[in-house]
């Protein structure tokens, strides 16, 4: 990856390059955009999502997040950067010993923001928009939820955290056609709440090859 000028860097939410075993993957996502990226395989996808969530890259990888190259970051700066990104991914699943409400509200309760009233409002609004009955939905454990419901719960948790860069990994995997149509509404929902945010959908080509 050639080093871009600082001004150009600031315009980018994500620049990722992976060059391992003669396979090169390059992803660039401008700030405030919505991008759909198809990666060659699940391993590459997992590497990308993990690198973003950790704000750390492995040998053979280059990563810039929200204008900052992560390789040189000190621990505190890395922590601050990590707090500005989020993902809906199997890599970052729900906690099975907590019910859905506790899963959604845990990051806000731990970090002290946003206020719990705000979390509750967002949760009820989003669940209503996806046709879920909040009281019943929120008291169930993740193991008592279906695939679609788990994904909705994780999406609400992501929305509450309001990351500047949100990565949505394998959005419709394991869902039926009608369920996939419902989760397609995630983009609109995210956009309506975070017009300045960046949304990156990643999936793999392997699914189409099957």
């Amino acid at each position, binding site marked *: 990856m050639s080093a871009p000028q600082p001004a150009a860097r600031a315009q980018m939410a994500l620049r990722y390059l992976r060059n391992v075993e003669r396979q090169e993957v390059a992803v660039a996502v401008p700030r405030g955009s919505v991008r759909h990226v198809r990666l060659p395989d699940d391993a590459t996808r997992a590497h990308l999502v993990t690198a973003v969530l950790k704000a750390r890259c492995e040998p053979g990888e280059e990563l810039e997040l929200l204008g900052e190259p992560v390789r040189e970051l000190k621990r505190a700066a890395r*922590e601050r950067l*990590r*707090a500005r990104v989020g993902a809906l991914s199997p890599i*970052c699943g729900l906690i*099975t*010993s907590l019910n859905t409400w506790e899963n959604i509200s*845990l990051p806000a*309760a*731990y970090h002290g923001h946003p206020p719990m009233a705000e979390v509750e409002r967002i949760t009820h609004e989003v669940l209503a928009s996806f046709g879920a009955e909040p009281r019943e939905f929120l008291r169930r454990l993740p193991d008592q939820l279906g695939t679609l419901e788990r994904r909705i719960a994780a999406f609400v948790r992501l929305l509450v955290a309001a990351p500047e860069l949100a990565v949505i990994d394998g959005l419709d995997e394991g869902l039926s056609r009608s369920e996939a149509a419902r989760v397609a509404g995630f983009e609109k929902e995210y956009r309506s709440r975070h017009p300045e945010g960046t949304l990156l959908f990643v999936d793999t080509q392997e699914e189409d090859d099957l």
Partner: protein
Amino acid sequence: MQALREIEGGVRLSLNVAARIGQLRKPPILESFLRQIYFTGVTAATGVVLRASVLGVMIIAVTMNVLDADVDLAVKILLLVVFREIGPLAAAVVVILRSGSAMAAEMAMMRIGGQTRALRYLSINLYDYLVLPRAIGMMVATAVLAFYIQFLAVLGGLILSPFIIQASFMELAGRLLDLFQPVDFYYSTLKSLLFGFAIAVVCCYHGLNPPDLTHNAVPRVVTRAVTQSAMLVLTINAVFAYIVFGILFFGLVRATV
């Protein structure tokens, strides 16, 4: 080498818990702390009523019979053996078997299922959210449970003794209050707090560091956590008795200074 690594890991875990105790004010951590007290202390309490009462009765019955004891000896046995030593140890055994094993298994399942990783990605510190409330909660619960067991065991012993020796319940209770010193209470409470902390740290350490990330690791984690907790509790008990009273093994070994 593995033993050294485990000791080093346990010490590091303990220091982290001590350093981060202020985090207990955060709502989800406080909730987890209260939940731990409930599961370790409150739910265990109902199950130990009969066992604790029988414990005091058995010890008094056997020693009275063997030693042909009088009032003084009966009360001393209740105080020195049942109150100081057996009560906290019995509470530690209950906590290890009921909560320590469950805690180690839960942590191992979370680690294997990638949930500890998910917490880290949510910028939630594992020490804060998983270890701290469990360690402090288990400390408090063990101390309270020990006091509960001591009370029931001593009461059981006092009720039974009049049937074996020539003394009334009031006479025995009065003699017990005469002999009882605040140091007995502080000693057993401090010891119980240490037992609870040690059990929680050992179980959390093994739960968070399974030998591999397969489900086969869970029973191995639980076995190691339970056996090492029990060994650590016995070691603390022996060291504590030697430091405070200059005795080891119920007085069989005495300090020379």
